């Protein structure tokens, strides 16, 4: 730009001014974009700050040991107790049921889509998974309470109306599309020559999938499963509707339970005026939940990155 300014003397001033204002605009635009990007950082900072500062208030009344290892949660009774173990057990129970459903179904669907399905079948199955992925979780809660539970009750007689099993299964349906589509992406990255080598040795399709495709993508599949686990742990509405809102320290899937998320939801809707121990207890549960999910997400992205470096 400056050189063109020199060759056309009469326009020099014009180009110079463009040059100067251009430089300034360049800086301003960069600054504005950086400012926008900082909102993301600020959001995480505010999340951590709010959770920590409210939790500190909580831990001034209840000792961390009592919170972490207490076996009774009763935030709204006269005889209050803030032991998080029943909530943790509820969360783990529903999450394990969800994974028990979603891992075989999700990976099976991924194998179907990437290895077996013709293009026309893919065009039918893929949108079905996308629709399942987009269904709001209240709808899954409704489905668990009014469809899964009554149907299960026909052959499990001691199943209570609100139970961990139905909620866990609905949660499994919720995370199945995530597992299926991300696993499918990983399957596609398996080089054709590896599969061809398997077939050349006389392997059947199932052998190629079990011995070549899955081992090759194993860390990516683990990354996907851990990511899905994080989503299941953070899910609120399904368990709030179908699991019963009763904090019980149990691993029996037929009973009513309460998860960490459901405890937050229940307290938020009930009477937890700001500043009370009940109110701050939500944030203690919240920060525990946040920490668990953050650790899972970190492991997941670590596995994913390691896999990408190894194979791409």
């Amino acid at each position: 730009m400056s050189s063109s300014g020199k060759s056309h003397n009469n326009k020099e001033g014009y180009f110079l001014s463009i040059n100067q204002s251009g430089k300034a605009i360049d800086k301003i635009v960069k600054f504005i974009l950086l400012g926008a990007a900082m909102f993301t950082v600020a959001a995480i900072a505010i999340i951590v700050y709010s959770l920590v500062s409210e939790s500190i208030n909580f831990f001034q009344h209840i000792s961390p040991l009592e919170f972490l290892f207490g076996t009774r949660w009763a935030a709204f009774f006269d005889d209050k107790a803030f032991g998080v173990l029943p909530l943790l057990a509820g969360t783990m129970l529903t999450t394990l049921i969800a994974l028990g459903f979603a891992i075989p179904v999700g990976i099976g669907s991924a194998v179907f889509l990437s290895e077996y399905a013709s293009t026309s079948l893919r065009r039918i199955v893929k949108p079905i998974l996308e629709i399942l992925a987009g269904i709001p979780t209240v709808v899954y809660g409704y489905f668990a309470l009014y469809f899964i539970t009554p149907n299960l009750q026909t052959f499990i007689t001691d199943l209570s109306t609100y139970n961990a099993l139905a909620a866990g299964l609905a949660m499994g349906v919720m995370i199945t599309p995530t597992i299926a589509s991300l696993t499918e992406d990983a399957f596609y990255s398996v080089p054709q020559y590896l599969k061809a080598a398997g077939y050349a040795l006389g392997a059947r399709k199932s052998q190629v999938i079990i011995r070549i495709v899955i081992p090759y993508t194993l860390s990516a599949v683990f990354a996907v499963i851990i990511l899905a686990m994080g989503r299941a742990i953070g899910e609120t509405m399904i368990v709030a509707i179908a699991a019963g809102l009763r904090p019980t320290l149990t691993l029996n899937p037929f009973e009513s339970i309460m998860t960490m998320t459901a405890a937050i939801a229940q307290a938020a809707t009930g009477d937890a005026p700001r500043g009370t121990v009940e109110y701050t207890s939500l944030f203690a549960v919240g920060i525990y939940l946040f920490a668990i999910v953050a650790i899972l997400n970190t492991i997941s992205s670590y596995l994913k990155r390691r896999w990408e470096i190894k194979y791409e």
Partner: protein
Amino acid sequence: MSSVKAEVRREEEKRTLTSIKEAGFQAYILVAVCICIMVLTMLLVNVTLTGIARVSTTLFLNYPSSNVDEAGMRPAILGSIYTVVLAIAIALPLGIATGLYLNEYAASSIVNRVIQITLVNLAGVPSIIFGLVALSFLSYTLVLGRSVIVGSIALAFLVLPLITVATIESARLVPLSHRLAAYALGARKYQVVLKVVLPRIMPTALTSSILAVSRAIGEAAPILVISGLIFVRRDPVSLLDEFTVMPLQIYNWVSRPQLEFRELSAAGIIVLLAILFALNILAIYLRNRLQQRVIE
């Protein structure tokens, strides 16, 4: 001789075994896919049969009521529209700007890495935490109350990573030749970013914002914490009004034991799902149309 025969027999047995295993594996795959298809079918059929009779103008125009035949979800529909539109109005410019910054400016600096990591973490935060933090920080610390604007901001940050990631991915696809051509004509960096890259990522931004709308419109957990399960009998008018949203109204009806309210919740679900399907079809249509135009 006999050892050869035995060898042959063993080989044949092995083959039948692999065939059986193959058949078993195929059966498993088929069952897995059928489960997905069946679950979706049963869900849609159950909801439709239960709720279709109660989808009426009453549902759209009336206020919630303890009398089932008069109950509607007008404030919830308005609340959903207000919060979601506002959330996208906040998240779309922020997400595009963040994506542009990450892809165009901060190539591999520390700032870039920090923002990337926070972005991944933000995407993984359970949605109810957004509600909790919005309640503590926005409603109480900033004294905005349990209002529409607080709900919108929570939803905006919930969908922000989605829009940002879509922006980064599409900005990455803008060919280097286009940027170089612009630079060769004497363009400054901001001109390249705003006049070459930005127009090319608009189609993706548009579709990703529609997907963000469909994500935000179904979110109940953060709004449940922010607004509480209040009985809203008024249309939200200002940003500081109390509000409720469609999925929350559905939750309210689901948690009532009477059969009539179950029907009402199913009717609400039909409306919500219809909106979501329409949004997704719109997103697919726009993606196909706009992408074609860009390629041309």
